[in-house]
């Protein structure tokens, strides 16, 4: 443990035992919300469920930004592709009604494919330049969805999207979506954990620390960048399909730049390292404005202030990335603090 004079809060959050207990506690709470009838239950199912959707999206973006170090400002594009794929395959629009599990996988796959294609020309770009290009792609996807009216119905959107029927259970209630989302989150957390501790994960870590050095030490950075982009996009596509079938109607405006920025906020608040941080980040960012509803008119201005204050108080996010442990370097060295902060 770092011995320094930082605040009690900081120390608490860095304690591993505390974090495990917190995770367990949060999981139990999340699991039990739909089980016990309490006032405004449906509202909370909706709010937490929607935060859950952003957790999924956050995990996808985390692969891009947090794991592979690629600054992505246009993640909503993959969300949109997933959503529209679902809408095409399971609604009266083209009169196709494929089963949901197939739809969600196709949605993810299509998003991954497009993500890979987008990534190929921009492999050489770094930092903020990559950010701009991804921002541009995000906007281009949204605008295409808006203007290819014959295919997408343009600004009128696609409505009456099918509700999923999985193992005979029809999802006519938000509760089903709620559990589906959190089950998927658990699965994703597990899979991502495996990937991070695999060779791919180590390659990403190396690329993130210093791309040039990584390349020189023999890592095929192009391949790993493409892989990261594809995986992250896949996850985004999954989220999109869930959103489309949950909300039942989608419009191009549901996927604008604010959405990309929100997802980015989620993972930065969460800490950009630990994927469990994404959960906290999503809860904070999504649930918070809804909790602030009591302030009606002043809701957003308070929210803006809170973002600033949260960053000033804890700039590394809730659960920051642990610095890589190197041989011979103890964790109480004076450099450690600085590394963790970056």
């Amino acid at each position, binding site marked *: 443990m770092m011995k320094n004079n930082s605040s009690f809060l900081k120390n608490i959050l860095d304690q591993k035992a505390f974090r495990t207990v917190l995770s367990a506690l949060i999981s139990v709470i999340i699991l039990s919300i739909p089980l016990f009838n309490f006032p*405004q*239950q449906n509202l909370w199912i909706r*709010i937490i469920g929607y935060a859950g959707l952003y957790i999924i999206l956050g995990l996808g973006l985390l692969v891009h930004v947090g794991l592979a170090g690629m600054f992505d400002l246009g993640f909503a594009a993959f969300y949109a592709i997933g959503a529209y794929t679902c809408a095409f395959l399971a609604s009266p629009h083209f009169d196709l009604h494929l089963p949901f599990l197939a739809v969600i996988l196709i949605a993810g796959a299509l998003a991954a494919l497009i993500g890979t294609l987008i990534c190929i020309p921009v492999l050489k770009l770094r930092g903020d330049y990559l950010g701009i290009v991804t921002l541009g792609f995000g906007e281009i996807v949204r605008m295409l969805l808006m203007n290819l009216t014959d295919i997408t119905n343009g*600004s009128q959107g696609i409505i009456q999207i099918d509700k999923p029927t999985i193992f005979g259970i029809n999802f006519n209630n938000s*509760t*089903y979506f709620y*559990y589906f989302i959190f089950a998927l989150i658990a699965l994703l957390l*597990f899979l991502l954990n495996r990937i991070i501790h695999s060779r791919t994960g180590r390659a990403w870590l190396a690329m993130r620390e210093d791309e040039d050095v990584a390349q020189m030490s023999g890592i095929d950075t192009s391949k790993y960048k493409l892989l990261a982009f594809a995986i992250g996009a896949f996850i985004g596509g999954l989220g999109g399909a869930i959103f489309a079938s949950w909300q039942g109607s989608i419009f191009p405006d549901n996927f604008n730049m604010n959405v990309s920025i929100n997802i980015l906020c989620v993972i930065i608040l969460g800490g950009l390292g630990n994927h469990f941080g994404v959960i906290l980040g999503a809860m904070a960012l999504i649930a918070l404005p809804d909790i602030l509803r009591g302030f*009606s*008119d002043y809701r957003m201005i308070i929210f803006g202030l809170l973002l600033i204050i949260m960053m000033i108080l804890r700039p590394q996010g809730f659960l920051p990335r642990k610095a890589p442990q190197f041989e011979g370097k103890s964790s109480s060295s004076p450099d450690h603090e600085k590394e963790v902060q970056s």
Partner: protein
Amino acid sequence: MSKRFVFVSLLTIAMLLFAACGGAASAEEAAPAEAADTADTADAAVEDEWGYITIPAGEKVVLGLSSALSAGYAAYGQDMLNGATVAVQDFGDLNGWEVVVEGGDDQCEGAPGVTVAEQFSANPYLIGVVGPMCSGTAIPAIDIYAANHVLMITPSSTAIPVTASGNQNIFRIVANDDLQATVTVDYLFNELDLTTLGIVHDQSIYGQGIAEAVQSKFEAAGGTVTGIEGITRGDQDFSAVVSTILEADPAAIYWGGMDAEGALLVNQLRAAGFEGVFFGPDGIKSIPSFVQAAGGAAEGAYMTFGAVGGATGYEEFLAKFTEQFGDPVAYGPGSYDAATIVLNAAKAVATVDSDGNLIIPKKALADMVRATPYDGITGHLEFDENGDLKVVSITVFQAQGEELVPVKVYDFGE
């Protein structure tokens, strides 16, 4: 690491188990909540298939209002809230129970609108919702209101799918875009004798929707649409669109969109030398944000809107409204009427049970709204089985000086 593996896989298994039981359990939970209402009202002579709203003595009756209360369209949303507030003031109490308006900020977007819908649906003292303001918000939110049998009446969502769902609790007291387009085309063609039209829209559900409706009707009437272009909301400079649309030299230009961009557009059209007719939908009917904002370029522009003024009680409404809130923006009067309709219907079907609770049967409430004609400040309001107005009055206004003068009224329905 393996500890985490175990933890996560246990979590996954737990999730799936919960999903199987929890989903079913919750579905049962939702039903008992409704059944409980029915069972409670032992005194109710008639069974209401949607359940009852039970408001104990001393609690307040809540009227919900869903609109954009913050961010970009807040001016319109606040206006709606203000209209409903005045309506509640005018109405007084409901059989002795105090009525309050509760605003839900949907920011004119789908997802917040659904959250607001859930929030309102979860409120046991809520009798109905005025709004949502925007069509893109209404369409997803309707699913929630319908599932919970919450009365919803919107004074401003004009897109056609809003009342196409067949739900019995959804109402609209504004003409839909189809009718506005019909009026527009008729006026252009028959009153102004114009046969060439250029169309610009803002790529929104509302703006593009009505623009395309105008396009198809104008062409069906035998006119020529010389071009249809879309602008990006948020841009200020439309010079490129302006020059493209003017290339074909149309006699008139139809704008599908809202006031702010409409003002910019008409200004830039005139600056580019366009002298023809400028026509727009209800979204531009605003003196401060269209007529004044365009600084003189709006002179002579036409727009369609539901009839306001000249109907019963408008002057009194205006006096009360302006005293508290300044001039109404656009949907304040409509919101007033919507709120009053809900309250009137509630008063008509409400009973008091032996425990002193106010009981309002939900389906009877919706049926009462549908069955009761109402002469409001926006005109005569009577519903058909879809929840749209049977008789709709659309007025064509023209900007003259800093006034919006009605120049022709169209009536639809019997």
